[in-house]
């Protein structure tokens, strides 16, 4: 089959590789009909996630048709049309039982690597480094899905791929990030990053009762989407001092909740931006936390900080004093996709939201290298790329 392989920093290639096989009784094989490139993939593409190996198959946002089932999978049939959460979860452990699916104890065969770095291992993820399982991803014609009895969600008739594909990751991610904002009546939520995750976070914050959402980025078409599709107020951080502007917009209080939907490759301005870029380039710092620093300083006293943006390792100059002295609550994590899939599918069925609004580019799987390049450099007003095998 054809698959998108990581071949080194900023190099992906579509290669011919063997088809996946059933390896365990709870496995299934999916023939992929749609797959997307995520902001998280850019962290791999740019070489900031350790333990990638040349030849690894990328992709964690995919859906398709069941073509083969392991002997223990009884609740799905061949031919079913399914979406696949990007987190791999067993469904039986302490964490899965408590709806904390991205913390599953049993899905990472390389847990020891993660334990060395983080103390404990989160769940395995599709196509997301050996530290997080080393699983082949879904930017391919076929994929093997472990624990398929809990890791496949059937899609009812009448919904297109474009409408349901983002249930695999970015819609639940935006939604969980908004939920983590602990939104109360009258609350203002400020969201750094108007990429796909930010866009879904904006929509979700309103769905969860936010009074106002203020979205921050510098890319004009992303800000425009936040404003037009998301009904957010917008700030371009290259044009204004975001901290000051947010204070002015909120009567001096600061936003009740602030969200970092940017992650470890935040773009910085001025001396601070230069400092982080230099340190990250020299690998003295694994992550560039520009947005996170602003989030913490801008947040109102006693407010909530929500971090869907991915961090991999260590950050510098974390304003811990501000977080501590202002009594902030911080919530974060890889998304517990399984928890949100059904309720969010219902929102789509009810017409509350049509997630396809973020798609700007549709390409053939073979064009993945161009897709990565276009998405990374935000060329051609690119916001979200969907690949068709």
């Amino acid at each position: 089959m054809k698959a998108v392989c990581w071949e080194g920093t900023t190099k992906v290639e579509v290669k011919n590789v063997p088809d996946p096989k059933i390896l365990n009784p709870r496995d299934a094989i999916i023939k992929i009909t749609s797959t997307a490139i995520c902001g998280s993939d850019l962290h791999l593409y740019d070489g900031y996630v350790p333990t990638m190996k040349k030849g690894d198959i990328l992709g964690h946002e995919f859906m398709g048709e069941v073509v083969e089932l392991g002997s223990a999978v009884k609740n799905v049939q061949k031919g079913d049309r399914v979406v696949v959460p990007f987190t791999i979860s067993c469904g039986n452990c302490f964490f899965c039982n408590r709806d904390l699916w991205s913390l599953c104890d049993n899905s990472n065969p390389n847990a020891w690597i993660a334990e060395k770095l983080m103390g404990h291992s989160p769940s395995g993820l599709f196509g997301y480094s050996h530290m997080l399982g080393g699983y082949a991803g879904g930017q391919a014609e076929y994929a093997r899905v472990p624990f398929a009895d809990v890791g496949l969600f059937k899609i009812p008739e009448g919904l297109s791929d474009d409408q349901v594909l983002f249930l695999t990751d970015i819609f639940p991610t935006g939604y969980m990030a908004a939920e983590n904002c602990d939104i109360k009546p009258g609350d203002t939520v400020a969201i750094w990053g108007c990429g796909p995750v930010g866009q879904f976070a904006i929509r979700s914050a309103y769905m969860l009762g936010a009074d106002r959402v203020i979205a921050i980025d510098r890319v004009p078409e992303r800000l425009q989407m936040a404003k037009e599709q998301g009904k957010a107020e917008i700030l371009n951080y290259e044009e204004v001092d975001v901290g000051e502007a947010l204070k002015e917009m909120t009567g001096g209080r600061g936003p009740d909740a602030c969200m970092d939907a940017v992650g470890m490759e935040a773009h910085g301005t001025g001396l601070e931006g230069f400092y982080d870029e230099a340190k990250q380039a020299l690998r003295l710092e694994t992550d560039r936390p520009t947005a996170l620093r602003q989030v913490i300083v801008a947040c109102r006293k006693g407010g909530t900080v929500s971090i869907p943006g991915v961090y991999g390792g260590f950050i510098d100059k974390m304003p811990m004093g501000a977080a501590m002295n202002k009594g902030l609550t911080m919530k974060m994590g890889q998304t517990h996709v399984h928890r949100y899939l059904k309720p969010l599918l219902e929102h789509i069925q009810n017409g509350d939201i049509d997630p396809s609004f973020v798609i700007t580019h549709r390409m053939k799987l073979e064009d993945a290298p161009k897709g990565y390049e276009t998405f990374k450099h935000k060329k051609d007003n690119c916001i979200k790329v969907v690949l068709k095998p």
Partner: protein
Amino acid sequence: MELTPQDKSSEQSPESIEAGDKERWASLIGGGAMVLMGLRQRSLRGVLMAVAGGGLLYQGAKKQSTLKQAQEAMGLNQPIKVEKTVTINKPAAELYSYWRDFAKLPTFMKHLESVTLIDSKKSHWVAKAPLDASVEWDAEIIQERENELIAWASAEDADIENSGFVRFKPAPDDRGTEVKVVLEYNPPGGAIASAVAKLFGEEPEQQIGDDLRRFKQLMEAGEIATTEGQPSGRE
């Protein structure tokens, strides 16, 4: 916790039981503290044997081989001690009965080739070793408490002299069972040494940890997570 060692008093050499060993043993395996910390300088085997009545398989520290004395003299005779604990979301009885059927251990203990039961107490262990070398030993259960504990020690002529126990202890408030493995082994000398070093790797701690993790996966998820055999752009 009160322990009732098997009655092996006829074979027991009085000096092999140190005062307080039984109490120490009971508090070590029953408590939440780290067993190896409690043992400090004492050998696990010594304590296990003392409590079990001693002298059964192993004649005690006094009967050392000359090789062993040489190793000791060269400062090489450092027994390797490992302690690892994992919490498994299953009742102790279920975990105990799977483990007690030693023949099944190679399913999750990656370095074992086979375990053959000789009788209800004795078993023969074969470990995978590089270059067709095989590392084998007989082991005997020296302590056994249903759903709580299995302790074993290798027979005297073992390729790797080893002893250890696995303990199953209910975790607080519905969290399943804490499974603790404590192991001690003496790396042998001679030709077999390097094979054994390979076998147990540089980090025995991690290997035991990985074995325990696979046990947990098998018990909780019904299978061991793997990516072996999946495609990549490398082949």
